[in-house]
């Protein structure tokens, strides 16, 4: 608990808040430049104002969803670090997965304040920053060239070769989904494996709490998906992951008592 107090100290708020403020300044600089350029190009200012208003209203609900993510992570990483990660660059599912993997690698078992050490926190924080930086790296080194290539007309297609291969266009999306199925399955399977063999092969005496919490989250998510499909309310998406997590975490408090 002493470590959690340090993770919520004014110093951490200052470090994280400073970066968040810097990013806010960048956004203002880009917005002002774009607005001025739009005006110079003769774009209707009413249209630009409508784009700003529409974006501001659109962003409110997902932002509240992101705030719920900060609350979810604040118990194990303190408030300032998740605040920084989710204000700038991050996304809830990414941050939690990477933090869990870093916890394992740092030797504290899993993401929990009970086992957290200062060294483990620093390791988790570095990995969270490092793992998601690829979009930024690519845009630094290749952004200009890529944008220029997109602006120039596409070259004529070469004639198709004789050898017939499977057309892989469209497999990208499938592969990404498969990758996430693999990632999720590894963790869910570890919870099941822990029940069956956690305290000795086929002893069936391991903790069932993580699997039960995962099931509650899956059920909550199914309800969110159902609501969205039935009502067509797109805003449900903004809350579905964070909302399901908070429902399952609340259930963990009660299920934990039964398991104990």
């Amino acid at each position, binding site marked *: 608990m002493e470590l959690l107090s340090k993770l919520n100290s004014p110093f951490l708020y200052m470090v994280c808040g400073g970066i968040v403020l810097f990013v806010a300044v960048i956004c203002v600089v880009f917005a002002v*430049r774009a607005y001025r350029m739009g005006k110079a190009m003769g774009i209707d200012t009413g249209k630009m104002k*409508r784009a700003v208003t529409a974006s501001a209203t659109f962003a409110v609900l997902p932002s509240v969803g992101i705030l719920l993510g900060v609350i979810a992570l604040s118990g194990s990483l303190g408030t300032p670090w998740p605040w920084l990660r989710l204000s700038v660059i991050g996304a809830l599912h990414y941050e939690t997965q990477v933090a869990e993997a870093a916890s394992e690698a740092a030797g504290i078992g899993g993401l929990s304040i009970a086992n957290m050490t200062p060294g483990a926190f620093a390791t988790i924080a570095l990995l969270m920053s490092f793992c998601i930086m690829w979009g930024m790296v690519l845009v630094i080194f290749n952004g200009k060239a890529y944008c220029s290539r997109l602006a120039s007309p596409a070259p004529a297609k070469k004639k198709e070769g004789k050898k017939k291969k499977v057309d892989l266009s469209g497999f990208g999306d499938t592969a990404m989904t498969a990758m996430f199925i693999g990632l999720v399955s*590894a963790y869910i399977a570890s919870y099941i494996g822990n029940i069956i063999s956690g305290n000795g092969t086929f002893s069936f005496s391991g903790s069932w709490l993580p*699997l039960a919490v995962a099931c509650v989250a899956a059920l909550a998510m199914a309800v969110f998906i159902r609501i969205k499909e039935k009502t067509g309310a797109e805003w449900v998406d903004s809350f579905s992951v964070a909302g399901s997590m908070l429902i399952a975490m609340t259930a963990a408090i009660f299920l934990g008592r039964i398991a104990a």
Partner: protein
Amino acid sequence: MENMNENKASYGRYLERTHSLGRIFTVLVLALLLAAPFVIGMYLKAMPDIPACIRAFLSVGLVYLVSGIVEYLIYVPMLGAGGSYLAFITGNLINMKIPCAINARDIVGVKSGTPENEIVATLSIATSSLVTIAVLALGVLLMIPLQPVLQSPALQPAFENVVPALFGAMACKYYRADRKVALLVLAFMTLLFTLVPSLIGSTSMMVIPSGALAIGLSYLSFAKARKAKEGDKE
């Protein structure tokens, strides 16, 4: 005509400057984000464990390396130059920035790849990022008095189960996309963890075989479906 050429030249200069500023700001933010763990480590009197970082990166980080490249290739054409720099700095792409930019584009009625889209996308992403920053700052400010409640032992089981809660929600979301592959991979991984329980402690490393198996099975089913489709056409 002269006015049009002038506009074109000034837009060209704007894009040049956007790239320069975008690169400088992105490098600075990246440096700050990578430096912050070391600064915090100095405050906590413990530095990050680099070998542990490498191990964890090899397990779960590679997934995000691939998804980072894919996101970059797909989203830059939608967002334009200014929007891309901002979106990759501020994150939350799929759940907010992309739909927000598309929504603004549709409302204003501009086409992808045009100078108007460049302006509207930049305005949209800058605005949505500022709204998120403001909402989170306000929320965090309100959370400060709640810290004792959030740290109470009664709530600890909730925070200790953040990860199962996340994977449960994600399982429901992704398993719907391909139930057959999901069931096969889950069954295989369960068998593996049951027969070799020592692997449970390094689940993040097991993401590699699990992901490879899922992609392999998806490829087989994708190729089969594509061949069948081509056969039908012929």
